[in-house]
C-alpha cells in the first residue's frame, strides 16, 4: 500500500508571527488581571471568564500552529479535542456537585458573605501514621 508523503513544512516566518501574537496575548493577560471586571460589568465570574478566554486563545494558537494540528488529519483533531472534552466532563460534573451544595446555617460555607477559612484550627490529623 503506497501512500504519498506530504509533510507540510511550516515556514519560520509563521512561527515568528505566532510568537509575537502570543506575547501580545500575554501582555493582555497581565493588563486584564489588574481590572476588576466583576465590578465594571456588574456581574459575577467575568474576570475569570476573560482570563480563561485569553488563555484558551493562546493554547489554540500553540496547538494549531506550533503543534501542526492545522495541517494534520482528522484523527489528530479528534484526539486533541477528545482530551479536552473529557477534561470538560470531569470539570462540569464535579462542579455540578459543589455548586449545588447547601450547607446548614451557621457552618462556614452556608453564607456567601464570609467565605473564609476562619474556623477554629483543629490539631493536625495523624499522630500514629507513618508513610
Amino acid at each position, binding site marked *: *500500500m503506497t501512500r504519498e508523503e506530504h509533510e507540510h513544512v511550516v515556514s519560520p516566518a509563521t512561527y515568528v508571527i505566532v510568537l509575537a501574537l502570543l506575547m501580545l496575548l500575554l501582555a493582555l493577560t497581565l493588563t486584564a488581571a489588574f481590572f476588576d471586571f466583576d465590578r465594571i460589568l456588574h456581574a459575577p465570574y467575568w474576570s475569570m471568564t476573560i482570563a480563561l478566554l485569553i488563555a484558551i486563545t493562546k493554547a489554540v494558537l500553540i496547538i494549531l500552529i506550533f503543534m501542526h494540528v492545522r495541517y494534520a488529519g482528522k*484523527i489528530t483533531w479528534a484526539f486533541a479535542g*477528545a*482530551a479536552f472534552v*473529557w477534561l470538560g*466532563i*470531569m470539570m462540569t*460534573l*464535579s462542579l*455540578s*456537585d*459543589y455548586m*449545588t*451544595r*447547601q450547607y446548614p446555617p451557621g457552618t*462556614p460555607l452556608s453564607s456567601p458573605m464570609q467565605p473564609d*477559612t476562619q474556623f477554629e*484550627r*483543629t490539631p*493536625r*490529623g*495523624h499522630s*500514629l*501514621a*507513618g*508513610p
Partner: protein
Amino acid sequence: MTAIPLTPDYAAPETYLNSSHSIRSWLLTRDHKRIGILYMISITFMFLIAACGAGLVRINLLTPSGILPEPSMYNKAFSVHGILMVWWFLVPSVPATLGNFLLPLMIGARDLAFPRLNLASWYLFIISAIMILGVVTFGGIDTGWTFYTPYSDAFANTRVTLAVAAIFINGFSSILTGLNFIVSTHTMRAPGMTWFRLPLFVWAMYATSLIFVLATPVLAITLTLLGIERLLGIGIFNPALGGDPVLFQHLFWFYSHPVVYIQILPTFGIASEVVTCFARKRPFGYSMIAFSSLAIAMIGFLVWAHHMFDAGISPYSGLVFSLLSFAVAVPTAIKIFSWTATLYKGSVALETPMLYILGFMGLFTMGGLTGVMLATLGLDMHMHDTYFVVAHFHYVMVGGAVMGYLGGIHYWWPKMTGKLYSEFWGKISAAIIFIGFNLTFFPQYIAGYLGMPRRYHSYPPEFQVYNVLSTAGASILAVGYILPLIYLFWSLKFGPEAGRNPWKATGLEWQTSSPPPPENFEEIPTITRPPYAYDMMAPPAVPAV
C-alpha cells in the same frame, strides 16, 4: 542400535513458542504473543494471592463474632483481596493477555505498533506487583481498595504510600497497553480491513483502551495527591485547611467507575466471538454491538458519583448521576439482546467456551440489573455499603468478567498453545464454577438487603446462615478455579494437537497456524469478506471437536 535419522526436510514448523528457548528470549521478547503469555502467568499468580485474601474473608465470616483474632486482620484481608483483584488481575486480565495476543492477529498485523513499549508495560506490571506484594508482606493495607480519606491520609498506620505508589506504576502499565492498542487499531489494519470488518473483540478492545487512556491518569494524580498528603502530613483533602475528603472520592471514582467498564468490555468482546462461533451465525446487529461498546465507554465516564450518593454530595447532583447511570444500562442491554438474538435459530453447540459465555450472559444480566437497582437514589440509601453491593459487583465482575475471561482462555487456548484440553473436564469445571459462584454470592444479595453491612469483621447472628452458605459456595468455587489450572496445564504436555482452526471459526487469527509463527502470518492477508461470514462457510462434516 541404529538411530533413525530424521529426514532432512522434517522440521517442526516454527512457532512463536519454539523459535527460541532461552529465558533471555522470553524476558526480552518484543513479540506480543509472548508478552501475552508472560502476562497470563503473572496475573494467574496474583489471582491466587488475592483469592487467599478472599478465603480469609469468607473464613472469618463463618461466625458472627468473626474467626480472625483481630478486626484489623479482617480489614487487611478484604483490602488486599480488593486491591490485588482489581489492579493486578481484573484490569489486565483480558486486555493484557488475550488482547495482547489476539489484537495484531485479528487486524492482520505482524505486531502491535510499539512492541518495546509493550514489554515495558509488562515490566512495569511486574515492578508494581513486587511493590504491592511487599505491602502485603510487610504491614499490609487496611483502607479498603477505595483508599477513602480521611482514614487513608491522616489515620491509617499501614503501608498506604507504598501501596499507592504500586498502583501508580500499575496504572502506567495500563496506559501503555491502551495507547498501543489505540494506535495499532488506527494505523496497522491489514489491507481491506475496514473498521466495519473488524471482529467485535477488536471494537471491545478499542473501547477499553479509550478508557485506559482517559481514566487512568486521573487515578495517577489522585494517588499522587494522597501520597503527598501522607508524606507532608498535610494535604488538599484535609478539612483543617478547608479541604474536602469527598473531593478524593470524586477524583477516585472518576477513574474507578470507568475501570469497571475496563473490566467488562473486553469480556463483551469475547462473548461476541464465542456466541457467533458456537451458534454458527453472524452476530445480530453487528454495528449496534460495535457502537454500544463505544457508548458504554463514553457514558461510563458520566456516572461516577453513583458511588457517592450518601457521601454528602448535593442531592441535585445525585439526581443527575442517577439518571446517567440508568442511561449506561441501555447500550449494555443492547448487547445482551443482540447475543440472544444471535443464538435464536442458530446451530448452538455447547462446548466449554460456550458454557462459560452462557453462564456469563445470565450472571452478568443479574448483576447488571441489581446495578440499576443501586443506581436508584432511594434504594441506594438503604443498600449502600451493605452486602447487596458486594453481591452486585461480584455478579458482574466474577460471574461476568471472570467467567468471560475463562471462556476466552478456553476458546483461544488451542490457538495460543496448539493443544486441545479435555472437553469433559472443561464442562465439569464450568458447571462447578457456576454452582459454586451462585451459592457464594446469591445469599449475599439477601443478607445485604436485610441490612448486613460490608467491611465489618463481625455481624448480628441473624445473618449467619447466609454467610455459612456463602463460605460453602466459596470453597466449591475454589475447586472450580483450580481444576482449569490442572487440566489446561496437563494439556500442554499431553493434549492432542489442535490444528489451525479446531472450532471452524471465522477471523484472521484462525487462518494462521496454531500456535502462530513469530511473524503471525506467512503473508499479510487482504480482507474482502464481511466479518463472521458463517453463512458463507460450508457446514462442518463432523461436529466441531
